[in-house]
């Protein structure tokens, strides 16, 4: 349809184009036309078109047929297909219309080059209709009197043309109006048909290229009826508990057709339909009694119908209706089992009787109550005990013995046959063997090998093994002739079940045989947590706990221990699942290991957490093996050393503790006999137990600068040197100060006057200040030290420490200052400390004098020294300027400094109270 309109539009467009004004302002007139006008052509046929020019155009424009050009759309048709019939007619021939397209135009070359369109036509190409095939009809009953007939057919190939289909039908003596399909081309519905007269039906297809008719179908419409299904279906329970009566209405008149029926039914909730035998419902009817049903069961029914002789179609299934059969007596007694608890008392049992509610098809109604009878087998004379219960269990306390328990279920109609269970004294009969399980079809199958004796029935008992809940026993009965069954219960995957099979005999029961099983296994939900129990140098003992049943998800088949160092490959060790400990060996010492453990079921494994440990650096006993010999060797060495020292103590004493002359034995001790008591605690007191003590005062001789060391100034040193050389080795008395000179130097008394008179700068004097001993009036003496004893820092310090903190501080400051002087005056002779060597008078008191040399003002200092020393002795404070240039007694008097704050003093120090005070 679309293509036809398209072609028409093209044609109109061409008609406008091929018209031109012959005369300016004149009428629009075509200069030619094409024959045939808009033809419809069969695909693949040949086709010839003629273009006929008007005579008027010939005269006016000198247009002739030999100038005609044929075009398909905008494509020029090859000249070979042209034929000039005369001077006004040109034809074009196409051997195959499939090469044609629309529009086909006739054009002319005016004035040799200008192409003008003369005329154009649309060409419609298609196919003639095929003969419709597979015509079939069906009469759908839509109401009691309305029977529309619908016929369908295969319209055949696409014709590319507007093709009309008509369903024709007629009686032999009467024609009916055609049935024209709406919107389709392959079916049509005749609104009403009459039965019992043969109707001839056929389909006619027609288009511009022809028409075709199907083979006629001659039929009596009554033979192709699909009737409406019976309706108003009702189900009524009859007298019998196994019968339900169905009634319905047919919606097709018996005058039209006789019907047969199909009845299907199913138990409600079930999906499988059962069907009443068709031969039972092969005749017209409006009711039927369905037999063989279960009592007290709800059924669903449905019905359909068709023509009795089977010609035609089945109706749809009717609406579903339900009905319930009436009750009947229970067909069997409830399965019964027991749990015997003999733990409370050996003489009696607590017996929990359990029975299962009957299945609906066994109960045949509503179970109103159960009647339980317990009869002692040992005393048949005693009457049985009867219980009526509404539940499915009963707990009894029975004396130890054998009992026969019967249970009867009762509904409104009657009682069931009794179920009997023997409660034996012991399970002394033969058990089953080879209990095994097998998951199959989502259920757990249990099989066993029957014992040789005849078994009445089996009881299969099972429970879910779990850490989180108790083992709730479930059970089921099986007849004695089977050796396997599926567990009837909600068996969950990945859970462990303990299954026990008991054989029941007519006179007792066999002991149960158990097996554990899984319906489906899975990987463990977690892996074992491994840890070390003991770690050695090359081995580690690993321990772990078994996974709980809930974590296992299956049978643990093995454990695998994986361990590795940080950068090493992982090593795996498979361990038997029964173990909880394993020793890793051949480990590297002092190495960090990571270990984890996997537990495997049949379905796979799961790893536990990583655990790290470090092997020990030394093995067991290695440390002892090293330490003990070392200690022994050390002790041995020490012992040898001690022995050696003991043997060589004299030699060692000579080197380490040289003989120090005792100042108390010096000459000066003879004129200063007082010995301060405090020095009794010094080490020298210990060395000289006579109680004499030697205080040493050092007189520093300081030079301000090198320039001040004139030769005149250095004369006293020369003098000193001379005298030193003369007195070396044998001098006694007060020693002079020494500086980098031999400790044996000494200055005699006679030098004092000379030095005082002859040297203006430096005089080697010791200032010996005597404090009063305790409350005694000190006798201040200026004396020159005649001691040649070397000044031992360590000794003095130890004395200072022993004497008091003030003295120590002062002394330290002093020696520090002195040391600093040494550093600054290394290029000069420096000063000497007098050293008193009094080997013959060790018990005398020796005072040390500090000799201070001031290079710049040695002479005035020498003059003032006595005076200053006297003042210092009085004030017990001596202060000199830092440079030693100026002595300001007034400053000393005005602001006496503390010992720590005492400026650099290079004057001969006086001995303060508690200080060094030769006495």
């Amino acid at each position: 349809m679309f293509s036809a309109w398209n072609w028409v539009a093209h044609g109109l467009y061409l008609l406008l184009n091929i018209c031109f004004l012959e005369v300016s302002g004149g009428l629009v007139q075509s200069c030619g036309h094409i024959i045939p006008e808009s033809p419809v052509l069969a695909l693949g046929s040949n086709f010839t078109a003629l273009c006929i020019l008007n005579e008027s155009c010939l005269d006016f424009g000198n247009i002739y047929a030999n100038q005609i050009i044929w075009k398909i759309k905008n494509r020029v048709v090859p000249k070979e297909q042209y034929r000039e019939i005369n001077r006004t007619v040109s034809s074009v021939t196409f051997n195959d219309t499939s090469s044609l397209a629309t529009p086909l135009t006739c054009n002319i070359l005016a004035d040799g080059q200008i192409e003008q369109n003369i005329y154009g036509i649309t060409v419609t190409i298609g196919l003639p209709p095929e003969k419709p095939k597979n015509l079939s009809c069906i009469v759908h009953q839509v109401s009691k009197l309305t029977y529309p007939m619908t016929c369908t057919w295969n319209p055949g190939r696409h014709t590319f043309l507007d093709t009309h289909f008509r369903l024709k039908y007629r009686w032999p003596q009467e024609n009916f109006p055609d049935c024209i399909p709406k919107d389709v081309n392959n079916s049509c519905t005749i609104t009403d048909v009459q039965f019992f007269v043969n109707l001839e039906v056929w389909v006619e297809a027609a288009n511009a290229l022809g028409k075709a008719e199907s083979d006629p179908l001659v039929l009596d419409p009554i033979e192709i009826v699909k009737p409406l299904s019976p309706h108003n279906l009702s189900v009524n329970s009859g007298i019998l508990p196994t019968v339900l009566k169905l009634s319905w209405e047919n919606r097709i008149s018996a005058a039209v057709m006789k019907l047969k029926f199909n009845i299907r039914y199913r138990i409600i909730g079930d999906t499988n339909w059962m069907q009443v035998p068709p031969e039972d419902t092969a005749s017209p009817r409006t009711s039927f009694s369905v037999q063989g049903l279960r009592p007290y069961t709800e059924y669903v029914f449905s019905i359909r119908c068709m023509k009795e002789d089977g010609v035609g179609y089945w109706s749809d299934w009717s609406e579903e209706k339900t009905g319930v059969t009436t009750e009947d007596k229970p067909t069997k007694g409830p399965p019964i089992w027991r749990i015997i608890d003999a733990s409370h008392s050996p003489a009696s049992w607590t017996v929990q009787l359990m029975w299962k509610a009957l299945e609906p098809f066994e109960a045949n109604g509503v179970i109103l109550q159960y009647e339980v009878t317990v009869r002692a087998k040992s005393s048949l004379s005693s009457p049985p005990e009867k219980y009526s219960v509404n539940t499915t269990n009963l707990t009894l306390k029975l004396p130890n013995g054998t009992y026969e328990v019967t249970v009867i279920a009762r509904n409104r109609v009657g009682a069931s046959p009794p179920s009997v269970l023997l409660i034996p004294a012991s399970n002394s009969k033969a058990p089953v063997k080879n209990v095994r399980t097998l998951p199959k079809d989502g259920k757990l199958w249990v099989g066993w090998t029957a014992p040789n004796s005849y078994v009445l029935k089996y009881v299969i008992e099972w429970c879910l093994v779990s850490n989180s809940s108790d083992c709730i026993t479930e059970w089921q009965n099986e007849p004695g002739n089977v050796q396997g069954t599926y567990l009837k219960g909600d068996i969950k995957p990945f859970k462990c079940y303990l299954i026990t099979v008991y054989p029941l005999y007519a006179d007792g029961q066999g002991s149960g045989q158990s097996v554990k099983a899984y319906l489906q296994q899975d990987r463990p939900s977690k892996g074992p947590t491994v840890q070390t129990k003991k770690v050695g140098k090359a081995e580690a003992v690993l321990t772990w706990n078994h996974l709980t049943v809930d974590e296992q998800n299956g049978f643990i088949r093995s454990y695998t221990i994986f361990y590795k160092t940080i950068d090493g490959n992982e090593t795996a060790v498979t361990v038997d699942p029964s173990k909880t400990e394993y020793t890793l060996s051949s480990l590297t010492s002092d190495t960090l290991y990571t270990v984890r453990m996997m537990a495997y079921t049949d379905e796979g494994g799961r790893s536990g957490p990583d655990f790290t440990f470090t092997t020990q650096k030394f093995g067991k006993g290695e440390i002892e093996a090293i330490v003990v010999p070392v200690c022994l060797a050390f002790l041995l060495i020490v012992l040898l050393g001690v022995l050696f020292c003991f043997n060589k103590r004299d030699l060692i004493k000579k080197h380490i503790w040289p003989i120090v002359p005792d100042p108390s034995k010096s000459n000066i001790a003879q004129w200063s006999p007082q010995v301060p008591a405090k020095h009794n605690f010094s080490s020298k007191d210990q060395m000289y137990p006579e109680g004499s003590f030697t205080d040493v005062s050092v007189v520093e001789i300081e030079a301000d600068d090198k320039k001040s060391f004139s030769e005149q100034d250095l004369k006293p040193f020369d003098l000193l040197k001379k005298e030193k050389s003369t007195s070396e080795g044998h001098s006694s008395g007060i020693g002079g100060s020494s500086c980098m000179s031999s400790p044996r130097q000494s200055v005699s008394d006679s030098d004092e006057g000379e030095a005082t008179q002859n040297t203006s700068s430096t005089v080697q004097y010791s200032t010996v200040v005597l404090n009063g001993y305790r409350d005694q009036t000190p006798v201040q003496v200026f004396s020159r030290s005649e001691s040649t004893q070397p000044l031992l820092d360590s000794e003095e310090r130890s004395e200072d420490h022993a004497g008091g903190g003030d003295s120590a501080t002062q002394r330290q400051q002093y020696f520090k200052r002195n040391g600093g002087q040494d550093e600054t005056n290394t290029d000069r002779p420096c000063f000497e400390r007098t050293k008193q060597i009094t080997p013959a008078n060790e018990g005398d008191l020796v005072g040390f004098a500090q000799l201070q040399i001031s290079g710049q003002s040695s002479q005035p200092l020498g003059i003032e020294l006595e005076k200053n020393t006297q003042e210092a002795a009085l004030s017990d404070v001596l202060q000199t300027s830092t440079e030693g240039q100026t002595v300001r007694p007034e400053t000393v008097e005005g602001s006496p400094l503390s010992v720590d704050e005492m400026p650099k003093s290079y004057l001969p120090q006086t001995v303060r109270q508690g200080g060094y005070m030769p006495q």
Partner: protein
Amino acid sequence: MAAADSPSAALRRRDLCSRGIRLAGKMRSDVIDLLDTYVERQGLDASASVAAVEGVPAAAAERWDEQTGTQRLLDNLAAYRAFRALLAQMLEEQREQLGEADAALGRALAAVLLQVSAFAYHLEELLRLESRGPPSEEGAGPPPPPHLGLFERKLRGLGVLRELAQWAVRSARDLRQLAKPSPGSSSAPSPAESP
């Protein structure tokens, strides 16, 4: 009776008879339903008595059991041709009277008319099998309808339908008689089968 003796003709005859009987049964059923509708729609009393309709042969026959098969067929054909004309006339009148307002009645009338026509065809075919051929319809039709009033036309229509229902019963019996294997048996039907 000069019945065709060929097996195919016998089968054809039996088939025609069988379907004719069922068609008659359905026609009767439909006519009964149509009568109820007609009485209701035309505002008539179902128990109203209607005089014999002119031009409609009576279904009752005094010596029905003595009729030959051909005679039965001819009587039936004449009757149904008459019914066909009468029903066509009724349909026309109904359309004129009620227009398209009561299409159901019109469709029911048309359906019955078709069945009457179909039954007539059955009879003609049976007559052909009897080697007699159907008589010409010329002059066999009902007389031209007299000019009747509306109510009279309604009563006339009621009479036509009632008689058609009677004829449907008789035709079924006639065809059943014809369908019997022995042609001679048709001359001695049991009294219980008489209409």
